[in-house]
């Protein structure tokens, strides 16, 4: 069974997780084409992806970098690293 190395709880079986897909930041101000690209387009080619994984037993979301050719988990990313401010001036959105 494949194990996923949780930063705080150690390795856990992959069957305990739901795959959340590639992490990406939504464009805060964007035209329709930019939005469409954000909603649909993905990094399809093999390489290192930043992805969300949901751990069902603890209800926690985790962010990992994974090599999608070898299926190797390379490192976990603290969620704080990808946080961003929401715009306060909503008239521009």
């Amino acid at each position: 069974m494949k194990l996923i190395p949780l930063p705080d709880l150690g390795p856990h079986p992959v069957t305990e997780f739901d795959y959340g897909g590639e992490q990406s930041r939504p464009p805060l101000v964007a035209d329709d084409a930019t939005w469409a690209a954000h909603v649909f387009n993905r990094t399809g080619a093999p390489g290192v992806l930043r992805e969300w994984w949901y751990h069902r037993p603890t209800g926690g979301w985790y962010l990992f970098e994974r090599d999608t050719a070898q299926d190797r988990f390379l490192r976990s990313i603290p969620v704080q690293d990808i946080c961003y401010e929401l715009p306060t001036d909503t008239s521009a959105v």
Partner: protein
Amino acid sequence: MPLRLLKFALRGTDAEPRFFPPEQPLADQYDIVIIGGGGHGLACAYYLAREHGVKRVAVLEQGYLGGGNTGRNTTIVRSNYLTPEGVQFYDQSLKLFQDLSEDLDLNLFYSTRGHFTLAHSDSALRTMRWRAEVNKHFGIDSELVDRQRIAKAVPEMDLDCGGDQPVLGALWHAPGAVARHDAVAWGYGRGAWQRGVEIHQKTRVTGIRVEGERVRGVQTNRGEIACDKLISMVAGFTPRITEMVGLQTPIEIFPLQACVTEPVKPFLNSIIVSGSLHVYVSQSSRGELVMGASVDPSVLHSTRSSFGFVEELADKLLDLFPLTGRLRVMRQWAGMSDMTPDFAPIMGTTPITGFYLDAGWGTWGFKATPISGKTMAWTAVNDQNHELIKPFRLSRFTDFDLVGERGAASVGH
């Protein structure tokens, strides 16, 4: 033909004509280059030569013919999809398949079996009723049937599934069929070659030359080739090719696994799919049970197959067919499925002039082999999308105009 067999036994097969020509040198230039020698690439080459008389066509295949998803699929052919666009498209393919053995002068073992998609819940029944209505509207043989009908057709099945998730009814599609996948690729390949198409195996495209948003040629491990038209038909390798021309797409690669048991006496005539149990099964003409599930849960560019897959599948299969408990699994494998968010393909022209895409075939593209070959040939020759494939254009993702086919394609391939 027993006489011919006897001749082979006595004299050997050395004097027989080869199916494919031996390796030839690459030319400097072709009118149309096709990347990918799977069913789709070979069918497209065949129709380019046969219907459009295109003289200089080359198919470039990095490995061997049909070694991609074509040779890994579980060969289900059906047209009982959910969207009007999908139903009309796949129906044309099914019609081509029915005469294809004669057309290609090769026995494709095309075998019409009938196809049950089981419903274990009211919501599944509702989707099936919806599908049946859409199907009938387009003249497709498709109907909702009750437990008695299923029990009569498949007496070996436990309709109560061990008591857990009883079967309530099913979508019945009489034209559902299976075929011999390799033969489809070989038949199209031979037909294309006989009409002058060059087929180059062990020839990998490593780069694409684009000048001023126009295709000018490709780089391969055997040198450069000039061409003004290039068709990418590489299924699980699509993102690597689109990356070469800087084209963004929604395609993500997920492994799809399958396995077969040892051969046993025929007992299962129809194809059985259960979306709720995540399992589908048919019995091959050799007697093996051919089985599969939905795609693996996360992106992966690999064809490894796992023990977990067989374990889970066996668990579900036993609920449906307790009599398979002592069967042994003989082989298991995986292919790389090029998945799209709406479970429909991506076909046709692209923002790059002369670059055509035939992809997003995910877990459902074998049945489309004839019709995609035919419509993509027309599209490349006329430099505009064939009527049948317009709904599948790449730009549907910019126009928010998707073709939601998930309800008919996620487990039943």
